[in-house]
């Protein structure tokens, strides 16, 4: 059994819902880009004065008493939300009728225990809709489409006993069946005006002339076209939230972990029910004093493991602790399909994703954010330019070893050490570094390098490769002279 709620002239009602003083006065709702705005909806008073939908703005303004409003989509969304809210009070299974804006169909089977028989339920539903500020027609029927047609075609409350659908909608005009324009013209040409007249035609004849659409229209006119209900379900993602209020501010994170564990487990249970995993967890801590502390934990792969997620949250909050006592907790989860990989016996070794994530979080806590990861060379002329990227090793695969010669590795001094250099004939002959004097046995250079001369961050230096000797110690270094600071620096040591 379906109860259909249809607010006639929904767009005008939605506009009037925001400004109730307009209800008794004529008004039109204009839509489109200025200056080519058209009348999109008009209330009953305006239409009785001659305003029609589809008029231009100038034509509408020719009526002196008519007020013009602009169409506001948010107002329509609000009106939809209000009607949906009212419908939710009468049934848990609700379907929005797409082709008729503002219309909702309620599955009211079994609701008689709560709201009385179908007639009482329909009247209560209409009163609730009116209390919410809308005027709606209510129709109750066994057949979904018959109820929709009745709600759209008949004012007030209509209750159709089971099996009498064809008779109930028989007096409605065929346009109540939501016809396509060409079929409307066809029926007008045939002289078919009501549903009863359409239902009286032989089905095979209608199909022979209109095709399969004819079968559907004939069944609709008889109130016998079946319908599979698709109830509106609350968004699964939006529901993945856990909240908790605390009686007094808590400063120690360890005490919160018990609560976080419970909340994470609850979220994971819900996520597992849909065969999914948690891809990201947003922790919102409401602090004493009104401030908020927000952190997001985003594992490299979706996880289904409470312990790992909890450890990641703990390490993240320990690395970025809140500034005050915590009075409220919120956990927002984002779900994703769980990670599945086909492992092989003969594949190279790789860290297990969950453990790797926890280990990287621990390392970040121990060393700092920018000190853990993989180096990535940047497109820059500056020697040894690189940036740190998160460590995400690609799937194991064997590469052919390139037969390159072994390069001499440079150990970079970060930051460069300042050294003293004695020159002879513009060539370094002695280097003073770390309290020791080194004689230069070999020197190669200078190599002048510079970059970013167009900006403030320009750099320039003269680099030398030198072989230093101090008694028994010998080292091979790269030193550089910075002409701006007039200083010598040790860039690195070859090893």
């Amino acid at each position: 059994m379906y109860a259909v709620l249809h607010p006639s002239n929904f767009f005008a009602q939605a506009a009037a819902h925001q400004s109730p003083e307009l209800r008794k006065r004529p008004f039109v709702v204009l839509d489109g880009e200025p200056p080519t705005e058209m009348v999109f909806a008009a209330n009953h008073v305006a239409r009785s004065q001659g305003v029609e939908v589809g008029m231009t703005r100038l034509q509408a303004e020719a009526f002196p008493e008519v007020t013009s409003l602009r169409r506001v989509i948010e107002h329509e969304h609000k009106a939809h939300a209000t009607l949906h809210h009212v419908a939710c009070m009468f049934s848990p299974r609700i379907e929005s009728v797409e082709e008729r804006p503002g219309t909702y169909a309620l599955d009211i089977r079994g609701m008689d225990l709560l709201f009385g028989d179908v007639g009482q339920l329909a009247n209560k539903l209409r009163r609730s809709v009116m209390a919410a500020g809308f005027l709606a027609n209510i129709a109750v029927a066994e057949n979904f489409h018959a109820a929709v047609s009745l709600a759209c075609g008949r004012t007030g409350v209509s209750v159709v006993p089971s099996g009498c659908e064809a008779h109930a909608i028989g007096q409605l005009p065929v346009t109540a069946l939501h016809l396509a324009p060409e079929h409307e013209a066809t029926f007008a040409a045939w002289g078919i005006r009501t549903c009863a007249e359409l239902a009286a035609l032989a089905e095979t004849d209608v199909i022979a002339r209109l095709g399969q659409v004819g079968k559907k229209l004939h069944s609709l006119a008889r109130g016998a076209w079946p319908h599979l209900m698709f109830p509106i379900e609350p968004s699964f993602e939006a529901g993945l939230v856990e909240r908790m209020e605390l009686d007094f501010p808590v400063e120690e994170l360890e005490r919160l972990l018990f609560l976080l564990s419970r909340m994470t487990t609850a979220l994971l249970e819900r996520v597992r029910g849909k065969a999914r995993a948690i891809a990201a967890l947003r922790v919102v801590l409401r602090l004493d004093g009104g401030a908020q502390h927000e952190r997001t934990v985003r594992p490299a792969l979706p996880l289904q493991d409470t312990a790992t997620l909890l450890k990641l949250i703990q390490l993240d909050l320990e690395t970025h602790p809140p500034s005050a006592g915590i009075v409220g907790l919120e956990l927002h989860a984002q779900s994703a399909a769980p990670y599945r990989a086909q492992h092989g016996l003969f594949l190279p070794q790789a860290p297990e994703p969950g453990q790797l994530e926890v280990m990287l979080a621990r390392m970040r806590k121990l060393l700092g954010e920018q000190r853990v990861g993989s180096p990535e060379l940047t497109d820059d002329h500056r020697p040894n330019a690189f940036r740190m990227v998160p460590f995400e090793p690609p799937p194991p695969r064997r590469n052919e070893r390139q037969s390159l010669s072994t390069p001499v590795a440079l150990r970079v001094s970060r930051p460069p050490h300042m050294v003293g250099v004695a020159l002879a004939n513009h060539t370094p002959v002695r280097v003073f570094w770390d309290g020791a004097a080194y004689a230069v046995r070999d020197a190669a250079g200078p190599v002048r390098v510079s970059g970013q001369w167009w900006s403030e961050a320009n750099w320039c230096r003269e680099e030398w490769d030198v072989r230093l000797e101090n008694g028994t110690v010998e080292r091979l270094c790269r030193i550089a002279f910075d002409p701006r600071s007039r200083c010598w620096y040790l860039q690195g040591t070859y090893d």
Partner: protein
Amino acid sequence: MPSAAIIRVQIESTLAQRVPAALTLKIKHAPEVFASGMAEVDAMLGGGVPRGTITEVSGPSSTGKTSFALCTLASITQLGNACAWVDVSDALSPETAAASGVELQRLLWLRMSADRRTKLADKPWSRLEQALRATDLLLQTGGFAAVVLDMSDVLPQHTQRIPLGTWYRFRLAAEHARTALVFLTQSPCASSCATLSLRCEPAAVVPFSSQGETPLFERQQYQFARERNRNESSPFLQRKPAQRVNWSAETLWSRVR
């Protein structure tokens, strides 16, 4: 012969409770190794750097420790394995690593922070302690084919103060995780925990090239001496390898020339 075989079986069955297979030759498995990619060094090491053990490469500055370690990591990452570089002095040059052939995406670089704490705490000890904790975490996580603990710039008096128990723990963890743990130090510190110990020595000096207008540093000669190799007695090695080997490395710009 049959009587000898019977006596052997009798002795083994008698001692079975205390010593299983007392008189049977224990089959020693060939050690799993990662080739370093340098033929002469691999020949001396009996195939390369052993897996699941500690390899210690020690020597003063500019003796090729980093070049050797990067070359080994290049071979390992090109096999598709993940590796880690625990950098006590934050001295790794990603450019050189890429030039050696290391797949940087498979390399986890842990840079010990000198500037994170207060200046008072910036002693070699704080960074060493961080490095040891980081290595411990890496070994506990497992999955890394090789971990290089680079202590090349740490003075020997500091590395030698690290308790021996740390190295024993690392050895067990490396064995469990099947990780080749490589230490780069100035002087040996892991003592008997290291399965393979290499000493880097200064080799013959190659003078800078003077073919062009200005001299150019083009190549460097290195020498490795094998101090210890527990896998040496393996019956799979037919010939006793050399104790010392010379190898050379060249600069990036000499490749272009």
